[in-house]
């Protein structure tokens, strides 16, 4: 399989071609190239996956040595194991469906060429990220996807708010990235390599569990992961990133890029095992984030922001899984989440597309009969999101909760928190379904989705339903964690909680047995709603903490304070100049007098020396 490099190459080449055409390519051709290249990559990945499943053999491909400086020799090289294959399948598979969907979604946009170029570039970068054999190449992909995210969030650049959201996304993740870069430096300085497998081996041999250095290194890596995966405290960019086209949100901000942090931790799990405090921090960050985002999702009324918060929340589950060493479960949830969240986003995109860019769920309603395909997609997606039994989300989330339960000490707390999150997930996901698809209609859809939109929805529906049956080839990657002790009570509760959430949502939003309005309109309720609607007011907090001081500082320094010092010198010189120039009176007598004065002085000095 020396041709593994073809997999990222196809989308990359396509992106380059599309960019070089500078928008003059006919849109049919651009669409064909854009979606086709990812399709080709998907086919290659399928072939690779089949080969991998057959022999379970780790493949390593080195293209060239990036650079050699002393013992720093990062290579442009790929490392393909079970985890990589899973990630690649998700990226190219879901990616292809989303590209296909995009053709119809973006057809009328004048910049469709640019759109597909960025999307392809993203797929290429994401593939590099997961295929990288060393952390530096991973970092290349990492920053690459960040850039593409920036470009695509700000795709409709004429609205300054989109640009702002894009910048926020980039800068906030960049904060995490910088921490990660420092982590890489620490790892290289201490262990002398950045190649992941030798690195893990070296860490195992050089460091003891609980040493300071692994804790520090993993904490820095965690910083990167937290930024990219929109976890506390760097999660604020994701809801704003919904400014991009909806397929972008589906691909980048739901299925793939935001889960890169999960991938990073899973990839370097050996380090995290050496640093139990960091790992515990991962679990707590996950738990806090999943709760916080779930509460925030309850109050949103922008359809995409609800999904964005739910994404944050679901990634919180993945972090929780990583934190309790249930790596395989975390990755499993990553995969199922990619299916159902892509489905939900695409379905939401279809709603938006058909209702002419309407985002507010309260201005939708009654779409069940008017957009049946979308309704069923949404229903299946929400069911999977809420982890109703026998959907894909159920299997993965259940596994995570069980693993959390089994952690000694803090386990039950984590489990209970996760359970609360599951309840909330049930409520907010079905709140969305009930408000958008039931009730009375406010708008007639302007159009119906065509096959290019419907087909990905249907396929993703199937995956969201049946994805739980997949067996991921992760056995060779992660340590075997042992079988779960069957604890029936815990399992029943896990199954029952989402259903309870569904019931509450039904009572509140469809059945109207309990009036949600009175709840919201009570003083405490409305304050809480506004608080959650504003995402726990974290944005204004950061604004006051970082953004405004920085801009104030920049504004204060704008005119270059240091120039004052140099201008001071100039002023002194000019002052002296004016004083000295005043002696140039032009009067001959004055000159004569001063000369005589000097003469007198000189002679006096000579006399004194002679004496």
């Amino acid at each position, binding site marked *: 399989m020396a041709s593994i490099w073809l997999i990222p190459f196809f989308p990359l080449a396509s992106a380059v071609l599309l960019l070089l055409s*500078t928008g003059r390519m006919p849109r049919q051709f651009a669409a064909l190239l854009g979606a086709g290249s990812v399709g080709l990559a998907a086919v290659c990945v399928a072939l690779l996956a089949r080969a991998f499943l057959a022999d379970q053999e780790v493949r390593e491909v080195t293209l*060239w040595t990036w650079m050699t400086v002393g013992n720093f020799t990062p290579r442009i090289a790929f490392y393909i194991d079970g985890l990589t294959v899973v990630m690649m399948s998700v990226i190219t598979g879901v990616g292809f469906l989303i590209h296909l969907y995009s053709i119809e979604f973006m057809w009328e946009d004048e910049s469709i060429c640019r759109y597909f170029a960025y999307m392809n570039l993203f797929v290429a970068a994401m593939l590099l990220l997961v295929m990288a054999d060393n952390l530096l190449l991973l*970092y290349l992909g990492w920053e690459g996807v960040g850039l593409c995210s920036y470009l695509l969030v700000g795709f409709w*650049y004429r609205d300054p708010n989109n640009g702002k959201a894009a910048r926020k996304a980039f800068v906030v993740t960049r904060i995490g*990235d*910088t921490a990660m870069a*420092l982590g890489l430096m620490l790892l*290289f300085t201490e262990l002398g390599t950045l190649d992941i497998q030798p690195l893990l081996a070296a860490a195992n041999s050089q460091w003891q569990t609980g040493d300071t250095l692994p804790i520090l290194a993993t904490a820095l890596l965690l910083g990167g992961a937290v930024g990219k995966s929109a976890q506390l405290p760097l999660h604020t960019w994701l809801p704003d990133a919904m400014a991009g086209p909806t397929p972008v949100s589906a691909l980048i901000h739901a299925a793939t890029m935001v889960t890169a942090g999960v991938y990073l931790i899973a990839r370097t799990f050996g380090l995290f095992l050496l640093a139990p405090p960091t790992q515990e921090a991962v679990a707590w960050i996950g738990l806090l984030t999943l709760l916080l985002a779930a509460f925030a999702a309850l109050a949103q009324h922008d359809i995409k922001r609800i999904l964005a918060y739910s994404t944050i929340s679901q990634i919180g589950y993945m972090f929780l899984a990583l934190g309790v060493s249930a790596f395989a479960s975390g990755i499993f949830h990553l995969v199922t989440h990619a299916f159902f969240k892509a489905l939900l986003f695409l379905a939401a995109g279809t709603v938006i597309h058909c209702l002419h860019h309407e985002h507010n769920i309260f201005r939708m309603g009654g779409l069940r009969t008017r957009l049946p395909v979308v309704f069923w997609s949404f229903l299946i997606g929400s069911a999977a999101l809420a982890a109703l039994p026998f959907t894909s989300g159920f299997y993965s989330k259940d596994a995570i909760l069980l693993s959390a339960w089994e952690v000694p000490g803090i386990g039950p707390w984590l489990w209970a928190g996760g359970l609360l999150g599951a309840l909330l997930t049930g409520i907010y996901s079905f709140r969305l379904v009930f408000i958008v698809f039931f009730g009375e209609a406010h708008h007639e859809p302007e159009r119906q989705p065509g096959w290019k939109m419907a087909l990905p929805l249907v396929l993703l529906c199937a995956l969201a339903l049946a994805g739980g049956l997949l067996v991921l080839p992760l056995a060779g990657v992660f340590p075997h964690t042992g079988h779960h002790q069957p604890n029936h009570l815990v399992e029943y509760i896990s199954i029952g909680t989402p259903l309870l959430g569904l019931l509450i949502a039904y009572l509140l939003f469809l059945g109207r047995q309990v009036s949600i309005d009175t709840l919201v309109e009570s003083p405490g309720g409305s304050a809480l709603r506004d608080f959650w609607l504003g995402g726990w007011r974290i944005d204004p907090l950061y604004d006051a903490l970082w953004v405004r001081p920085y801009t104030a500082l920049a504004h204060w*320094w*704008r005119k270059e304070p240091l120039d004052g010092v140099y201008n001071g010198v100039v002023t002194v010189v000019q002052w002296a100049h004016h004083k000295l120039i005043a002696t140039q009176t032009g009067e001959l007598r004055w000159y004569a007098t001063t000369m005589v004065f000097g003469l007198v002085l000189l002679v006096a000095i000579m006399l004194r020396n002679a004496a």
Partner: protein
Amino acid sequence: MSMALLILILLVGGLLAWRSEKAQANLPRWVALATVVISLAFLLATLPQEHTGNWLQHMKLDWMPRFGIAFELAMDGVSLLLLVLTLLLGLVAIASSWSEIDFKPGLFHANLLWTLAGVCGVFLAVDLFLFFLFWEVMLIPMYLLIAIWGHENKTYAAMKFFIFTQASGLLMLLAIVVLAWQGMAINGQLSFSYSDLLGLELDPRLGWWTMLGFFLAFTVKLPAFPFHTWLPDAHTQAPTAGSVLLAGILLKTGAYGLLRFCIPLFPQASMEFAPVAMALGVAGVLYGAVLAFAQSDFKRLVAYSSVSHMGFVLLGLYAWNQLALQGAVMQMVAHGVSTAALFMLAGALQHRLHTRDMGRMGGLWHQAPRMGACAMFFAVASLGLPGLGNFVAEILVLLGLFAVQPAFTAVAALGLITAAVYSLRMLQQAFQGVPDKQRSMPDFDAREMLAMGAMMAALLWLGLYPQPVLDLARPVLEGLQTLVPPGDTVAAQAGGAAIVLGAGL
């Protein structure tokens, strides 16, 4: 001899360009272009395959033997890299001023070529007196470029540039004379030759002060915080070609001077001084980034970003290990290309819109997508996107620095974030947003795209396969490392550095 010929070609080419204006107004451009192409071809054609001693090439002619002054030129890997960069950016400068300069194009191109000649001389001279001569030679035509063809506030900017560099150059002259004098006291004969002055056992105090003379001259040119205030004015007011040369090459002469003279001539003093130098580097990285963020003038923003990036060079040089030194050299090359491109872009914008104020731009992407794409590319290059040359440079510097000064590294790494903030702000303000319907402007034409494309290719190459550059610089940098007595690394000074940093912040 070929090195002397190279300089001569540029000088004579300048004269020809000047005179050719009489024949036809467009001729100077072609003459200048031909001159640079010929000298580039000449440089590559006469490239030796292997080292003779420490140098790739070496020549020495008697000049003023009584004072130990010789016309001595030598080339090693780093000089070669910078020479190639100089000539390539010379081409870019000519391309960028092709339609911009109408006033006395002959004299303009003559000055351009003479600046290049001076810079080449600086990169080649290994006689300290000769070095100083070239140092001044490159200054004067540059001054004229700013003072004659600059923008609204050109006199002030040109003066400031001249006085800063001249004053610091004077300090260097003083240091050179003192050093030669000391050399005579020790070796018994007066000599300004680099090889004779290398490895002198100087009195520590005297060595420290002499080192400081060199250091100041080079850091003013670099420019390092807090000697950078000439740069935003000079860059902003200079014509496009002037900005390209200033940012792309002239700043590198400062870094080159540190690398070639300041550190090897005074290893011990430099070692003691390293924490201060690194603190200045860190301060420059952050200060430049904050001020870049605050600017509304496109060129000023890019100028401050240069201050920020050159801070990394200072960091890399004084971190003094293989990784960091390689990173510093890489940064010199990569920053030369990326900033030159940004200035060319800024010049093109100013030429088309007659303003540099980003507040009056906006939505340009719609009208000039090719310019937008170029701006995007070089903006992300300057914020250090992996896969482009600047990233390789910065990561190498930071990796090297981390080994000696983790705390400095952490602070300097903040520069990665701030770089993103100002770069993206620039893109946002100039190219995104609502386009002005009344404005019509031509996009980049083929000539400009050619220059841009070449620079993009260069940055990609540097970013993905930097090995040739690294290999060229390696012998030089390894030589630099052998100056350090084993065990006595910069890390030993870490404690002092932390204090300095604390005081600096």
